[in-house]
């Protein structure tokens, strides 16, 4: 898309675009290039010698069972967070779209978690599920379940999934509600006159018409679960116990800043970049085509 009418000036456009271009090159292009370059190098144990190793870092990475485990764990984590937050948000949005009395109040209360930082969301749930002081842990123990996210990897995973999904519910809720309110009332009324009940109407009219929103949210939520949940995990379980809550992004951080294994960390960054670019391309292609039935 282009403007028909434009201005002509020799220096002004360059002056205007310069700040953003400079920052982009210094803080995006350069580091990204550096990551790709370093992923092809290997340092010795003392950091004295660096040599070019080609794709060896990548080969080692994918031969490493720990990395493959992390990959699968991240996938499971993302799918759980996405499903949990999207399904509950859809449920709340459909209900909020139905009620007349109090709809605005419900909406105002349901968007609170958006303001909460992922790390803080983690700390709040960490507190509730803390085996010695948390009230939810107390209830679980009362039910006879031996809840301890400090020792049990599955418990720790459940904790970070709940905290991450909780934070994302408000975002999904707002988009689903906007999508629902954009559906023409006349379609729903016509179906009701033809004798379709609420459940039938939801599956054969509302849900298909909501599919562009759903698809968009699917991609956004997967990206969120991959990258933005670092704070949630780092502030609570620190990737543990053992490796049980270490996701891909946590591993990049851990190997790069704690383990100081730059070659491997850079190779992991490159893998993540490829995943993000893939997701973005998928999103753009489908949004162009519009998911519809």
């Amino acid at each position, binding site marked *: 898309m282009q403007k028909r009418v434009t*201005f002509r000036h020799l220096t002004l456009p360059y002056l205007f675009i310069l700040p953003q271009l400079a920052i982009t090159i210094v803080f995006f292009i*350069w580091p990204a290039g550096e990551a790709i370059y370093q992923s092809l190098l290997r340092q010795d144990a003392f950091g004295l010698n660096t040599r070019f190793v080609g794709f060896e870092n990548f080969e080692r990475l994918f031969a490493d069972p720990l990395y493959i485990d992390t990959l699968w764990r991240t996938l499971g984590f993302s799918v759980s967070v996405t499903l949990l937050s999207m399904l509950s948000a859809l449920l709340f949005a459909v209900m909020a779209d139905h009620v007349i009395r109090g709809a605005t109040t419900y909406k105002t209360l349901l968007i609170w978690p958006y303001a909460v930082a992922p790390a803080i969301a983690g700390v709040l749930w960490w507190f509730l599920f803390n085996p010695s002081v948390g009230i939810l842990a107390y209830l679980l123990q009362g039910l006879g379940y031996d809840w301890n996210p400090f020792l049990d990897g599955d418990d720790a995973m459940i904790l970070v999934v709940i905290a991450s999904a909780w934070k994302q519910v408000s975002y999904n809720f707002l988009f689903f509600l906007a999508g629902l309110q954009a559906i023409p009332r006349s379609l729903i009324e016509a179906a009701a006159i033809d004798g379709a009940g609420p459940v039938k109407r939801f599956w054969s009219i509302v849900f298909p018409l909501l599919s562009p929103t759903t698809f968009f949210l699917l991609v956004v939520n997967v990206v969120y679960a991959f990258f933005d949940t670092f704070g949630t995990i780092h502030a609570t379980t620190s990737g543990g116990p053992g490796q049980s809550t270490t996701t891909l992004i946590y591993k990049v951080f851990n190997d790069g800043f704690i383990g100081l294994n730059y070659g491997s960390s850079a190779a992991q960054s490159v893998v993540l970049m490829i995943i993000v670019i893939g997701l973005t391309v998928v999103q753009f292609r489908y949004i162009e085509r519009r998911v519809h039935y």
Partner: protein
Amino acid sequence: MVENRPFFTFVAHFVLLLGVAIVVLPLWLAFVASTHEPSALITGLMPLIPGDRLVENYELVLGEGVAASGAIPVWKMLFNSLVMALCIAIGKIAISLISAYAIVYFRFPFRTFCFWIIFITLMLPVEVRIVPTFEVVSSLNMLNSFAGLSVPLIASATATFLFRQFFLTVPDELVEAARIDGAGPWRFFQDILLPLSRTNIAALFVILFIYGWNQYLWPLLITTDQSFTTIVMGIQRMVTVADAEPQWHVVMATAVLAVLPPLAVVLGMQRLFVKGLVETEK
């Protein structure tokens, strides 16, 4: 509502109340915990209504902080967060306004090239290239400074993209009229385009302020000096105390303080917030 189904309406209210409970409960309990003395919290069955230590606890946190762990008082963390969030929000809006203006309203050599360089960054969140970005910032001597905290986060194309989309919907007749009246590009930008973008700027500001305030990984890496601790990362240092139970009343008071400013922004400017959210993403 299409037809009157009292039972379904009842179910809807029930589900929504449940949802509100799940959403608000952690925040409410955090507030409750922050108003009790530490001994009330270690029994496992915590109280559900606020205690009487509200003033004392918040005074302690804001004024002194957890001095034992060498941390700075929380009011300073709040100040750091505020500066960082404002720098990110204002910087991003300023930079992207003018670059979107250049891209939309001018023809110049390498325009498409510049466009793609900027828009490729839409794809790469900071987290992905965290190690090399850290190295770049440290080689520029920007560790432990507000510039280092905010400038690398300013560079992202979302805001530019939003303004570009908006500028494309501004009618061409406005430019023609302005030119007939003898206005140059700067005058047009200042007197016509900026006032037209006011709502968009405000909506974007709300989103970017929250984005900046809630940053975690980046400040954690580049501030080794305690005096630059922001509140969101400050909490992490309070929770992970070695070999001891964290002082939960202090932690929760800090959490409440960390949530309040962005929450006030979201609730106070709800309409702008929803607009900004839906438009930046689509």
